[in-house]
């Protein structure tokens, strides 16, 4: 992952990685590995205020502006598959300009066969997490 890559470039990189696996087991194993590599959520953010409560799993998400005008995300989940998706989102959206984050459609999740985890009906907190990430980004973009 290169720090200067755009959201689209990073998403393409993720898609290429997942294309290496020809069955669901490989894809899910890779997803879970992504979750393990997710930087630990700072304790200050492991708090109700940053928690998105789903009825299936829970997600924590926080954002900070960086000194070079981009947005830095911190996130976690109590389920490891959810955490894998969280990690992909953080990997693709981290250190991007807030306006780009606010406008992204995250179609890459569909291309790696993980779109269903983002469905609002899945109630794993991910859909609400994305909405929060975008809200943070919109707030930062307008300041």
């Amino acid at each position, binding site marked *: 992952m290169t720090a200067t890559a755009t959201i689209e470039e990073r998403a393409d990189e993720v898609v290429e990685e997942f294309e290496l696996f020809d069955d669901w087991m490989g894809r899910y194993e890779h997803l879970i590995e992504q979750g393990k590599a997710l930087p630990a959520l700072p304790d200050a953010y492991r708090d109700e205020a940053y928690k998105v409560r789903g009825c*299936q799993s829970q997600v924590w998400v926080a954002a900070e502006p960086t000194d070079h005008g981009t947005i830095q995300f911190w996130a976690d989940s109590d389920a490891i598959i959810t955490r894998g998706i969280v990690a992909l989102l953080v990997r693709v959206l981290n250190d991007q300009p807030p306006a780009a984050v606010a406008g992204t459609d995250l179609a890459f999740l569909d291309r790696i066969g993980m779109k269903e985890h983002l469905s609002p009906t899945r109630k794993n907190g991910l859909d609400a997490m994305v909405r929060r990430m975008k809200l943070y980004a919109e707030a930062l973009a307008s300041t």
Partner: protein
Amino acid sequence: MQPAPSRLATRTFDLDEVRSEFPVLSRRIHDHPLVYLDNAATTQKPLTVLDRIDSYYRTENANVHRGVHTLSQEATDAYESVRPVMQRFLGAASSREIVFTKGTTEAVNLVAGSLARGYFKKGDEILLTGMEHHSNIVPWQLAAEATGAVVKVVPVNDRGELDLGAYQALLGPRTRMVAVVHVSNSLGTINPVRQMIADAHSMGVPVLVDGAQAVAHGPVNVQDLDCDFYCMSAHKVFGPTGTGVLYAKEEWLERMPPYQGGGDMISAVTFEHTTYHEIPHKFEAGTPNMAGVIGMGAAIDYLSAFDIEEIQRHESQLVTHATGELEELGGVRLVGTAAHKTAVVSFLPEGLHPYDVATVMDRFGVAVRSGHHCTQPLMDQYGIPGTLRASFALYNSLDEVDRLIDAVRKARKFLS
């Protein structure tokens, strides 16, 4: 639960034959035969129900209680003929005590909403239990907010049984309503509602029973229970969604104000004053879910053809087998080990999250529910994020239980 003599058992229970009557069971999911173990969420529908709904729309559809034309008469007859079917199914004294609703949730809301208008007063107590589904909590909270009443909660022990001593102690002079789930959706516990109703009645307190999870798994007789209200959904008993029943004792239905206004529930309307239709129609505003109600009738006919005790024996075999195999696996926490329970096995492999396990099990074609099952207070009490819930119906087989266990084993291996 007491036997309901009103059921007519005319069919011998033959599992293969039963399975062939549920078309969806032949589906494949991710290249595996579907193992559908989410019956507490909703059950599958037999051909007789599908055909009945289809033929209603093809040949009988017209608005009920409205037209003098033949089609409307036929639709009305078909719709109203389900009321005595539900009366017999639930053992009610009269078909006037059967109100058609959208389901259990609307039935509870109907009672809570109606009683919030004049019955509950400030400081009154509404007694619920710690294992209620959210739909038997929130309507009462709304009624309490509107009236100044307060909600009290009967505690649940670690096995998932109600603390009856605490219940009796909580029943007091301010108690105005008890609402209790007959069979817990997340644990399968069968609550001693008959005793609880007798206790409440000795204090002059009415009781509402949430029967959503009970009716597909054992005989229910509301007169024998002596409950004041009993709520159920058609879709959990092989019928269509969006349909259910509120049973209420006639005296309550006469006494309660209407819940919603509209067509079909009135006898005369002027802008000064409206007089309401007789019960149960007073509580059925608007064009009802005619196809749904007619489909529900077909579902009850389907179920009632069997000896319910034969179904209970079959389901109890499934639960015993699943429980035994899960214990055998080791490292699996069984949640809800009440002495009296029905066709639900709730469990959690140690160290794993139910969402992860259910996601992987789905890849093997096994459909279970994961999460808090709309009983968050109960999961909080157990200190777990939720469980995996396998819930059985009459069409499930011992082979499917083996597939369940195999999927748990594979999911655990994959996720560890």
